[in-house]
């Protein structure tokens, strides 16, 4: 913890006024002015004392926000404890300190602050700062500073707390055209299918003898009566549609085919890569909400292959992988990727600049190749991480104009 007193402009103005009053009092020897001067001086002393005593008893803890998403508000909560037995704290401002390190949060989002009006003696309150991430990546928070100018705004007292935490900022998500997923999945594999394994689906798979802990509802009473022993019905395992996403980042940024001659194309190589990542995230997100099992491979980067799963945590794993991609790292064009030739899954290959076949896709001619440059034509609009919230906001749109802003289509 570092404690500091700062002079700021209102404080300097106050000092100036005090000096003027002192000069006026000395010039006129007017005792009322001497009294005002005394009051102003005591204001300086008391301001320093009160704010100092207030801040000395405050402890702060940043609560991990888990993740953020580009274009979405990221709420960082702070637990503030006032350990004083008698003295309440007022007017506490909380801000994250920018650091001169490469992983500092300030590269990803503009600063935001929180304000807590009051913390009673021996109370804990939670302040919250709303950050608006502008770029994906790993945001590292090192130090948090709280400050106050209470009670008179003369002297600013600050305390800095060190607490290292990092948060992943997921890529910007877009709502994609609804026919995209249909186009990705071949007609033969559309719809819900079952596998040849017992599981938790709804289709009939077979009969087996009753075991402990089997649900009574799974007993086939007719067959049990015939066999004179309990027999249970086994259901088949469902087989949801699968989608494999390959992000092709094998080509270094500076070797990407950017077309500077085209006046409409002002995107740099790095922007194209970011768009590709954002597109991959959007596809994964849409597919997840459409019930797909998703797998992801990031070609050319040191990112582990993410297997075929369908769950919220699996989606977060994909997003985290996409968020952590460091585009400045060296590319590995000779990276060995698992063979997907015989896989019964839709395949989307996302390239930053131009669609070029990847050797790993083998004979998968039905693979869909899309590029970062196509984002504008594929995406309908930017979208929030939480679809339900986004839909609810859409529904409320127009009803609370002060709370809503028009979403750019």
């Amino acid at each position: 913890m570092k404690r500091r007193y700062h002079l700021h402009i209102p404080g300097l103005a106050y000092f100036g006024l005090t000096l003027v009053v002192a000069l006026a009092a000395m010039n006129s020897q007017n005792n009322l002015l001497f009294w005002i001067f005394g009051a102003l001086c005591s204001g300086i002393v008391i301001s320093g004392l009160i704010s100092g005593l207030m801040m000395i008893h405050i402890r702060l803890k940043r609560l991990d926000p888990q993740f953020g998403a580009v274009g979405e508000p990221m709420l960082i909560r702070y637990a503030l404890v006032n350990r004083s037995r008698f003295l309440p704290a007022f007017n506490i401002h909380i801000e994250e300190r920018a650091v001169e390190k490469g992983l500092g949060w300030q590269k990803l989002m503009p600063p935001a602050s929180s304000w807590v009006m009051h913390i009673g003696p021996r109370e804990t309150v939670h302040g919250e700062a709303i950050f608006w991430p502008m770029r994906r990546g790993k945001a590292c928070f090192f130090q948090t500073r709280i400050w106050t100018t209470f009670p008179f705004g003369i002297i600013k007292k600050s305390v800095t707390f060190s607490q290292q935490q990092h948060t992943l900022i997921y890529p910007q998500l877009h709502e994609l055209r609804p026919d995209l997923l249909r186009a990705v999945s071949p007609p033969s594999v559309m719809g819900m299918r079952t596998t040849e394994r017992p599981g938790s689906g709804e289709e009939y798979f077979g009969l087996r003898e009753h075991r402990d802990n089997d649900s009574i509802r799974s007993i086939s009473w007719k067959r049990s009566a015939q066999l004179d022993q309990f027999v249970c019905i086994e259901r088949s395992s469902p087989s949801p549609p699968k989608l494999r996403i390959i992000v092709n980042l094998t080509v270094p940024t500076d070797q990407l085919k950017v077309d500077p001659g085209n006046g409409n194309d002002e995107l740099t190589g790095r922007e194209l890569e970011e768009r590709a990542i954002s597109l991959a995230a959007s596809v994964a997100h849409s597919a997840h909400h459409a019930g797909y099992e998703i797998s992801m491979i990031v070609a050319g980067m040191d990112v582990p292959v993410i297997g075929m799963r369908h769950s919220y945590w699996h989606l977060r794993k994909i997003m985290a992988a996409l968020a952590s991609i460091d585009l400045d790292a060296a590319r590995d064009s000779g990276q060995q990727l698992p063979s997907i030739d015989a896989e019964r899954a839709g395949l989307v290959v996302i390239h930053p600049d131009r669609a070029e076949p990847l050797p790993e896709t083998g004979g998968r001619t039905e693979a869909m190749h899309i590029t970062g440059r196509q984002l504008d034509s594929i995406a309908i609009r930017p979208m929030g991480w939480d679809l339900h919230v986004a839909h609810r906001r859409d529904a409320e749109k127009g009803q609370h104009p002060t709370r809503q802003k028009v979403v750019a289509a």
Partner: protein
Amino acid sequence: MSLLRSFPKLSFTLVLLSIVGIAISQRSIGLLLVAGALAAISWYLTEGPRGRWLPRWVSNVLVVGVSLNIIVDVMQNPDDVLGVLGRFILWLMIIKLYERRTSRDHGHLLGLSLLLMITGCLHTVDLFFGIILFVYALLGLYVLVLFQLHAAHEKSRDERFAAMPEHSTAAPLIKPITGRYVGAQLRSLTVVVAVCGFALGMVIFMVFPRGLGEGVVEMLSSPSQDRRPGYSDEVDLISGGRITDSRRGVMSVQLQDQEGRPFVSGEPLLLRGAVLDRYDGRGRWRSASRTEDTLSVEAGRFTSLLSDNRGDAFEDELLDDSRIVTVHVEMLQNLDTVMTLYPPVAVAMDASQDLLVDQLRLTMQQQRSAPRLHRYRVKTVPLASDELLQRLDAGGQSRIRLSPRLRNSEVQALAQQLLRDGGLPVDPPGEHGSAERFEWSHAAAHQFMRYLHSPEFMYTLDLSGMVLPHEGGRQMDPVSYFLLEYQRGHCEYFASAMVSLCLHVGIEARLVTGFVAYEYDGATQRYTIVESNAHAWTEVRTEKHRWTVFDPTPPATLRELHAGGSVADRLRWFYDSFDGMWGRTIVDFDRTRQAQLADSGANATIGQQANEFVRALRNWMERVNRAFYLGPAGYFYMAFIGGILVLAIIALIKLMRRSLLLKRLFNLRHVRGRDQRRMLKQLGFYADMLVTLRRAGLAKPHWQPPLLYAKAVQLQSPEAATIIEKLTAAFYSIRYGGAELSPKELAQKQRQVTELEAVLRSRPVHL
């Protein structure tokens, strides 16, 4: 939340208070009405969702207009730069009130109101302004604290909305994040800050060195420093702004005989300050050419004013006169004139300094740069012999005549008529300077004084109805107008009229200004002189070196005025006492008082300080007693009232403690308003029951609900438990059922508590 919502109202109140303050300091009702009305209207126009504000360009134009007006104002009133500055700030503030009010604008308004009060301080040091300043300081403190929160809230909200990207959905509205009891804690903290700030401010006020850099910028010097407390060495009958009915102390005077024993004079003391013998015909009196000598006075030593050994040490033996009176003067205000009885023969000061002595008129004054007068002594001989007056050379060579320009035939006719009425010759008998002429002068002066004492003339301070007519394109002389037509005025008019009558018939007379002392404090054996004791009277030459005092102001009126017989006057006594205390402790606090304070703090023991306090209290009680004419029974009344006050304070403290106890016991802090008052009033019996049980060793654990506790007691004392159950049922009905017991029922509950106490005493519980 209500705390933040209250800020605009309180801030506006503070602004209004500063307007009242500046209007009081400038003594301008017009300013108060116009500025106050404009400010009040601004509230209705600008506040609220339908509020309308002045466009920025309009307010800028208005500011330019006000600035131009101020330049004109300065050129018209070059002597009143501070007044102009105050008005400029006031109009800026009024314009600001009509603008849109963000937190920054609120800050500007608060700053302007503070500047306004500072300008007011430079204008006046009156008690009423002091009260306004004190209230302003207290309210300002709270408003400043609220302003911090209000500004931070607005800033936080604005920042949050500004941070939102263009295409994003909105962030939630910001509600202040607070803990519990924020309002109560903020108010408590403000009170603590106010008390500490006031104490520290007073310490700084007392220790800050006085006299440093005084008058460096003369233009901005406070007019209050040049204030003459009712007294002036010039008289202007028309402006009359100096006349005051303030009872703020100016000085205290003690008379000592030759043996050093204090005594009371049989007549009011007339302490001379200035002698005015030149009149300009337009109501202005001043001294004719001064013949001032510098007299070096050593500290603590009497210096002679006698012409034969002037400036030397003075011994009583020099006069061979047993009627020497020593006047001890202790100044309570700053006054550069030495006030004396007539004629002064020697003077001693508490610090060495040079005095300017006007030997012609026997007046003394400090030099301009001299330090402030605090204590001095003057030896006088009220019944001085001719020989002594000759040695003093009191104006023997000068002669006062009426200028032909000022001669008024009607006044002359009046004077002659008065002489005829008194059986005196109209024309001065004998030669100039002859004894016969002086005898006639004395008798004529008496005749004029009797005339002015007649009921035809009335004493008044209210001269608002006095409009001087014009004669031949010139305004009529106010003295002649007073004598011939209006016949109402204050002491200066009476004295001027008497001088005028004398001069019109060839009698040498002059106007004297100073103080008249009536109030004798038996406890301190001193005369107390207040500002309203400022007076003017007449001196008439009745011998070559002798000037005899004639006071033409009706004596009955004067006594009435100074005695203050009505109830309102008596009540005013309190205000005047505070005014005097305000003047002594705050306004006139200077280097000497600082030194005295340091000395008393360093040297006096606690016992001495206590004695001093008791003595001051006794003196105060005596003064109150005299002011209300209570007599010996007054001390009984005061003791009675004091006792009641003490009892009331004790009762109040007990009530507050009980209220806190009930709030804590029954967790009433979150219950507000009427409900809380009802419960505080009704639940006392249950608290008493708990105290009784605790004393009996049956303390109720905090975790146990009342009903469970009642059942638990049954195991240990079944008889007590019966009563406890009844009381507990009543407690539940009041605390949670919203019931309100009648006084009779409450008394019954209290009786049950007493019964419980008796039961527990008769059958002690053995745990």
